[in-house]
């Protein structure tokens, strides 16, 4: 991936410096959160830490440093879990440490929720990440009896109330995530290609729009990242679903079916090659 940065009109030095800075800031904010006395302040500091680790991890992939990337995604996962945000599971999927999922889910579900979380609809919408994660990782198909399968339907019904609400950096509707979860949980997995389409299409559009703005693009002066973890995590979970259910399908073959720009395809292919163990 590193060799392609100049073709992508991205500046290597800027990315290296910002990676160091974000990684360092993530650690500083994490340490500050441990010493914060007020709940509200501690949450803000965790959020700063999570955001910085997430960005540093995405930078590391651009730099071809997959080892640092997985470590940083783990750090991000822990920080989001401290905030009881199910988005922690998406970061976990990118860290490759799926064996830690019960621990992360345990932290997200901690019974004592601070007052500032009460009644937050945004936090309820976050459950859609858990729905997708469960759909990708459960060993049984829908219709079979297991705790994971039994938990799936009620969670899906609750999220239906937010079907058209936007979530994530690209603002895709919650309904798109529900569709993907259904496709991943389906025994044949026949709708996965269609369910992934809105995400890849939005990513491709965002890449084109971002690259048009050469001032912000070359310096990555924007919250959207070319190695966008929101999209990459969904592809990583699709890979997990394929391997967990022993489906003879590959996320790389799937990716080839979409009409993506050269840069979108190069980045997604390069990132998945670094992150997926069997790639």
């Amino acid at each position, binding site marked *: 991936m590193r060799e392609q940065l100049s073709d992508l009109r991205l500046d290597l030095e800027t990315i290296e410096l910002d990676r160091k800075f974000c990684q360092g800031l993530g650690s500083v904010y994490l340490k500050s959160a441990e010493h914060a006395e007020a709940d509200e302040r501690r949450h803000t500091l965790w959020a700063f830490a999570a955001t910085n680790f997430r960005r540093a991890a995405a930078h590391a992939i651009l730099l071809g440093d997959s080892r640092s990337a997985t470590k940083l995604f783990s750090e991000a996962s822990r920080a*989001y879990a401290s905030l009881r945000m199910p988005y922690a599971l998406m970061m976990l999927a990118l860290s490759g440490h799926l064996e830690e999922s019960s621990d992360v889910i345990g932290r997200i579900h901690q019974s004592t929720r601070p007052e500032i979380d009460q009644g937050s609809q945004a936090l309820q919408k976050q459950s859609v990440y858990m729905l997708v994660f469960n759909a990708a990782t459960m060993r049984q198909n829908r219709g079979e009896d297991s705790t994971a399968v039994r938990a799936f339907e009620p969670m899906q019904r609750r999220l239906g109330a937010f079907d058209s609400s936007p979530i*994530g*950096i690209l603002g895709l509707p919650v309904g798109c995530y529900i569709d993907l979860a259904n496709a991943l949980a389906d025994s044949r997995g026949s709708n996965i290609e269609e369910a992934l389409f809105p995400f890849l299409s939005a990513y491709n*559009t*965002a890449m084109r*729009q971002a690259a048009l*703005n050469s001032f912000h693009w070359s310096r990555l002066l924007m919250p959207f990242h070319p190695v966008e973890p929101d999209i990459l995590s969904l592809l990583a979970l699709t890979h997990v679903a394929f391997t967990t259910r022993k489906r003879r399908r590959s996320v790389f073959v799937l990716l080839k079916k979409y009409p993506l720009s050269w840069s979108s395809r190069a980045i997604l292919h390069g990132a998945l090659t670094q992150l997926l163990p069997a790639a």
Partner: protein
Amino acid sequence: MIIQRVIRGITGISENDARRILTVGILCNWWYKVRTLPRDEIPVRLSERNLDWHQNRYDDPDPLENREVFRRHTPFISTTAGTVERDMFRLTNILTPAWQVALNFATRGLRQDGYLFYCYLFIIGRQAVTLEPFSEELRELNIYRGFSLYQPQGEITAKIIIPPAQIERAEFWSASDALQAVARGLLPAADPSRTLLNSLFVRPENFNNVRDFLS
């Protein structure tokens, strides 16, 4: 109306330049270019088209201005407030303090030193591109309606000038000092001996509804 605290990062200026800015205000690039501002052109320049170009086509040749790059004649001034609403973080999963965003701009991605100007702006909570006194918020979270890749940065776009009365101070930031601080596990900070306070500043606390930036 809300009085919003914001930070503006400016790169490549000397201490004298920073002092001058505290005296005359932060001007838009168009004003710097024409030197004497043609007031009658302001309503034409403050358009949705130009705001869109300011956000998305900043470095592109502008066909309406003999293909001069847009940034040379933008009537807008970018500032940042960070993401202010807690629920916005839960929807985007991204929360960055205002100083970090501003520092990135001020130091060209931590490669040179720069200044952070601490200001306040007036916002009215809805789009008012043609109204010069009010700044624009970029907070919409919807790819199908006004989606912006830059929205979670909490960008607030000022128009034509941020007057001296609204600029509290200018902080000098060394890029290498900031990098060294985080490497030592410390939160970076400006050198207090090089911070310039503005005697022309009018405290916003004299008014109602002051909303702080994210720190």
